[in-house]
Structures are given as C-alpha cells and as structure tokens.
C-alpha cells in the first residue's frame, strides 16, 4: 500500500505532486480527526445502565463553523489547482517553439508520425513508428493526439500526463521531460478487447541522440519511398520500431 508517488520526470510533474501531497496531508488530518472522534464517541458514549442520552437538537454555531471551514479549505484548494491545471492543459499557454509530432491511437496500438527534415509532415522523409516513439529531453514537446476508431487515453504515469484521444479531433498535449529514459505508456480508456495490451514506450533522449535517431529514420523512410512498393503501414507491431511509409498512401 503506497501513498507516495513515483518521482515525476516532467517539468509540471512537481506542481501536480505538490498539490497531491497537500491534499494527502489535509485529508489525512481530517481522516484521523473524524475517524478518531467517531471511535472515541462509540466507546465513550456506549450504553451504560442508568445512563440517559442528552436531549440535544444541534448547535447553530457548530453548523456555521463546520460549513465555513471546509468551504474555505476547498476554495483554497481550487485556487491552488487552477494555475497548475492551466499550465498542463490550456493550449493557449503551451510553451512556444516546441518539437511537434502527431500521435494516432487505434485499436490497439499507438502510431507516432514524425515530419521530414523540413518540418513537412508529407515530405518523402517523413516517417512513423509504432508503440515505441522517441522525443527529445529538456525541451517542450507538443503532441497532437488523434484517434482513428474509438476513444483511447494517452497515459504516461511518470510524466503525470493523461489525455483522451477522441476520434474526429486533434487534441494538443505538451510536456518537457527532464530525465532521459524509457517511460511506459498505457491506454487508460476502455477501448475494446485489446485494451489491456495497448502498452507503449516513450523514449526520451538528449537532443543529439534524438537527432541521430531521427536522421536515421528519415533516411530509411526516404530509401523506402524511393523503392516504393505500396503505401502500407509496418506490420511488426510488437517490439520493434517498425517503419512505415508516410505520404505515399
């Protein structure tokens, strides 16, 4: 039973974690006080021979106090939450000059689409990968999240990020990861019988490593486009970083 969060690796992660621990502290105190009082009353006022309950109907003063105090605490929590919420979710305040890519969810895989070297998503060297996709560390990344069939949900616990992917929409999400590494990606919305197997991996690399990986993929894509067979997506869905041809289809 673990109430502590795994360390977050995104820039906004600590903001969310701080809020979580504040709420954990407040609710923890309230929990101990109320449950303690409940148990104390149950023991202290248990039935005893000759004892009679006191004929009390209530107290206006008590009502005012226990209405006002929770109200103020909850409003304070709301005030603390708003800036964090906006920072994570409000597209109008997303960081500028982010690295952008497109992530398409479908039953039951994730496909990341990377633009060509000139930034054109339809360029011959544009490419896509399945389930394991790379992003640069220490700079903002914006992902345009789409779904092809049903609703899926992009969830990377260590990023403290979750967002549903809705068919018919492109929803932007952003993050900046401070620690390179491989982070599990899951689908958090029931999406059909393969929902349980829709795992992916986000590989966060330093900019130079990411550029090297990206260049290698682009070259492979350009060569494949040159030797066009047919525009079809890669079939090695499982472990490998399958390459598919973008634009020709």
């Amino acid at each position, binding site marked *: 039973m673990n109430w502590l969060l795994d360390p977050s690796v995104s820039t906004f992660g600590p903001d969310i974690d701080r809020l979580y621990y504040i709420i954990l502290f407040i609710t923890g105190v309230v929990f101990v006080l109320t449950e303690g009082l409940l148990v104390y*009353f149950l023991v202290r006022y248990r039935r005893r021979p000759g004892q009679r309950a006191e004929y009390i109907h209530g107290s206006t003063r008590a009502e005012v106090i226990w209405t006002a105090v929770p109200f103020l605490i909850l409003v304070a929590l*709301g005030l603390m939450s708003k800036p964090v919420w906006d920072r994570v979710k409000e597209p109008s305040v997303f960081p500028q000059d982010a690295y952008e890519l497109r992530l398409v969810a479908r039953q039951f895989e994730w496909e990341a689409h990377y633009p060509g070297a000139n930034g054109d998503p339809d360029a011959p060297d544009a490419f896509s990968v399945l389930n394991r996709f790379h992003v640069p560390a220490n700079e903002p990344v914006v992902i345009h999240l789409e779904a092809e069939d049903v609703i899926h949900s992009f969830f990377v616990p260590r990023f403290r990020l979750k967002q549903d992917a809705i068919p018919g929409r492109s929803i932007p999400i952003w993050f900046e990861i401070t620690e390179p590494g491989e982070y599990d990606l899951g689908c958090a919305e029931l999406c059909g019988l393969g929902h349980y197997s829709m795992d992916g991996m986000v590989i966060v690399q330093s900019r130079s490593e990411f550029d090297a990986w990206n260049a290698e993929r682009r070259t492979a894509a350009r060569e494949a486009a040159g030797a066009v067979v047919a525009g079809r997506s890669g079939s090695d869905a499982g472990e490998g970083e399958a390459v598919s041809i973008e634009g020709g289809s």
Partner: protein
Amino acid sequence: MSTAAAGARTDWDIPEYAGEHHQELSFLRRYVFSTDHKVIAVQFLVMSLVFLALGGFLALMMRWQLGFPGQPMPGGSVLPESMAPGGIILPEFYNSLVTMHGTFMIFFAIMPLLVGVFGNLLIPLQIGAPDMAFPKLNMASFWLAVPAGFIMLTSFWVEGGAAGAGWTSYAPLSASGDYTGVYLGQQLWLLSLFILGFSSIAGAVNYITTVVNMRAPGLTWFRLPLTVWALFITAILVLLAMPILAGALIMLLSDQTLGTTFFLPELGGEPLLWQHLFWFFGHPEVYILILPAFGIVSEVLANGARKPVFGYHAMVLAIAAIAFLGWIVWGHHMFMSGMNPVLGTTFMVTTLVIAVPSAIKVFNWLGTLWKGNIHFHVPFLHAAAFVSLFIIGGLSGIFMAAAPVDIHIHDTYFIVAHLHYVLFGGSLFAIFAGITFWFPKMFGRMMNTLWNRVHFVGTFLCYNLVFFPMHGLGIEGMMRRLYDPTQYGWLAELQPWNVFITYAVFGLVTFQVVFFVNFFLSIWTGRKAEANPWRANSLEWSVPSPPPHGNFMAMPTVYRGPYEYSTPDGEEDFILQSASPRESERPPSDGTRSRAALNEEEST
C-alpha cells in the same frame, strides 16, 4: 405555516384502501400483481438481492482473472466456449463482466434497493398513509423493472455476448458493434435501461405525489423523518434525470440500428455528446444512489444513540444542496476527455463546493453520537460503518475534484477504490442497516442477531482489505477495466496486491452468503417481531409488524418530530410521533397552537 392543514388528507375512506375487502384476493393479486406498497417493496427487495448476488458473482470472476490471469477458473469450465473456453476468461467476456457488474449493481441492485425498496416501504408508513397515491402505477413500476432485468440478464447468452463498453458505454465504442464484436448485446443493454427508466419515473411520480399530498395531520415538512426527506428529494432527481438518460439511450440505439451518427465522428457525429448526456444524467444518478442512504443512516444512528438527530434542519438543507449542486458537476467525469480546459476549471470549482454539504452531514452524524447512550444493535453497526467508510470515500473524492491531481489518477484503480467506498462502503452498508432495521416491519420476524453480527464484522474487515489497497494501485498508475494487468511492464510488479485483493474478495463473498442465508431463513424461522422492536418514534412503529393492508387502523395524528429520543420529561427514552401529547406539551385548549409555539417547535 399551518400545522394541521399541511398534512390534510381526504382520501382516507376510499374503498381501495380499506383493507378488509382485500382479504379474499387471489394469490396472484396478493403476492404477484399486488398494489400493496409493502408487497411491492418486498418484490423489489427480492429482485435486487438476486441482482446483488449476480453482480457480486461477476465481480468474483473479474477478480479471479485479475489475481490469476490466464489460469482456468475453478468451475469455469461450465461456461460456454464464447465466454471462458476451458475455464479461462476471454478478454471480450472480461469486458462484458466489467460492464454488467457495474450495470447490475447500479441499476438493478443499489438503485432499486434504495429507491424501490425503502421508498415503497417507508414513504406511506412513515407519513401515515394507507398506501401510495397511485397503487396501480406502483405495481406497473415493479413489473417494468422485471422485464428490464430479464433482458439485461439474458443478453449474456445472445450472439456476441453481453455489452462490453463499460457501464458508461462511451461512444463510439458502444455505437457500433464493429469495434467490440458485440451487436445485439449492446442493443439489449440500451433497451433494458430504457424500460427500467420508465419504472423509475413511475416510482418517482408516485413518491412525490404521495409525500406532498398524503401526510397525516400534524406531519409538517419539518416533522418528516430524514428518510422521507431523502427519498422525496431523490424522487425529484430521478424524475428529472431519467428522461435525459432515455433520450441518450435512444440516440445511441439509433446509431446502432438505424444508421444515424449522433456519436460517430466520421459522418459528423460527436463522441463527447454522449459523455455530456450520460453524465448529465449520471452525476445526479450518483446522488440518487447515496441520498436515501443518508436518510437511512440518520434514522438508524439516532435510534442507536437514543438521541435526536443533530442539526435536523442542516441535514435537510445539506440533502437539498447536494441535489441542486449535483446537476452542475457532471464535467468532472470528463476532465481528461478533451473538453475545453476552461470548462474543466468551472467543474472543478463546483465539484469542490459539493464536498461541503457532504462534510456537514458527517459532522452532524458525529454530533448525533456525541453524548448519546449508544445501543450497538446490528443496524447501528452498519450505520456507524457507513459513516467511517463514507468519510474515506468523501476524502478520496477531493483528490479527483482537484483537476490537476485527477490527471494522474483519472481512470485508475484510485477511482475504483473511491467509487466502491461510496457505493459499497456507503450505499450498501446503509442498505444493510436499512434491511436489518426494517426487516421486522417487512416480515414480522427478527433476523438472527448472531449471524448478522458475524456478517457485519466479516464484511467490514474484508471490505477494507479489498478496496483500501486499490488506492495504492491507482497511485501507481494501474488503469481500470484491464483484462490482464501483467501485460503492462510496470503493473506486473503490483501483481502480489492483485492476488491479495482477490483472496480478500473470496472472504467478502463468503460473508455475504451468511447474510443471504440468514435473510431467507429468518423470513420463515425468525423470532416473531413486536410492533416496535427498536423502540423508535416514527409512524411505522405504531402499527403491527407486518402492518395490515391499509397500514393504519385509523388515521394517525402527528404531534412531534421523529427524533424525540431521551426527552428530559419522558419516562421512556423514546416517544412515538403519534402518541397523545403529555400534559406538558398539550396545545392550548382551543386545539390550535399559537404561532409562537409553532415557531419554537420548528426551530428546535
């Protein structure tokens, strides 16, 4: 406010209600197509206990799969190949289990238990009425629920199996069988709930009409038991919420069968429209599932503590406030849906605010116990457990209300823990309190106390062993509705917890068997119950157990509120609402009370 006029009633002599004439009714009219609210309450009770057991059985199968994924379930080989070949649960069957467990529990167990059973049993008895305002509509309400349940249950055996898109049936997953392989099952799910909606609406119309029009003389609004208040406000929620669900269901059914595209985006539909419609119904529904429990718990705690409910007026206002605010918080189910983040902020504020009336209720329950003289009868044990578990469920809700924290825990086992702390720890414990409390009034016999205590202790312990660790699983990021958590690398490490929880569920289910056996045996073999075994105040305890057809021999007159326990001048520590006034509280000789006296009474 005129005391007597508010409860005036003119229908007392209608032959429909005069019990003696009905004694010659055939078996069919007395026990099957009965218009007697008490019989209908028992019919709802039996139906919903069956679905409670079935829902629990579905949960047991889910837990087997979660604890021991891919291993053949003991006895599972009796299931058809399409569900569990060789006893090994298939992913599509698992999704049906998830969906139908939620559907059974919410629509066919908890809701009819709280609203169908206690609404029917208590409203006429506690307001001094011979029956509901519309007895035939009441009968229709039950006999609509039965085919709805039958359709829902049989959908397991149609081609493609039962609905598998979750009890929330999010479109487009639910809107086309192409995504799930479930065609007819999903359509039957929609049809069943559509029919059930009529049952609920019929009940709600009846409850509202009955409470407004048929209160006994002297039973002013603020002398009503909190159960009646809670059920009355719940009925208003049902009346307003169910038509929204019905509309949404018809739209989804059209998408499935008629080729419309309300929720299918490729032809201009909008998947989020379903979520807005569903949760605009669904969040009031959440309160439909807890408000009557609040009423029951207030009633039982005061009885156990032998003390007036602390802050009666605050309790009524809190229920009303929750019922009102419950309409403007639905968006918190959609924080991660892609809804405009500004809207998310709005719903975060309303959601945090709705925690206030819930907190008020908890504090008033604690106040009710303060300086009491507590009798630990079985209903009280369940009610006290309700308070302790509802505190946990309420506090865990704050994590989700804060939208940034919800980003991490949304759609994880943290939510599963939270909703079960409210619906099981809350509603179901209140239902156990209610059933054990009013069992003698329903059946004229007492339940076996020893076995009831065994059931309580075992349930309380196992319940917490099952659901408390789920908070931790959610914090670690375990998603809901996962067929096999070990498929995700980081969740495989948590598997020992899933095994532990599954073992605890075996315990939990075992103790429910104790309850079911005790319940059904006690109907026939329990000790005969007296009229007022709990020494309580409200009107149902002034008539025999079980009450005769028509309930009251003569129309009762109410002289005081329902929680006048341990009054300083009384010899006993309780006094029936309808007991003639003692010397000290006799009204002025002309039979009407002065306005000052009334005001004083209302304010206490």
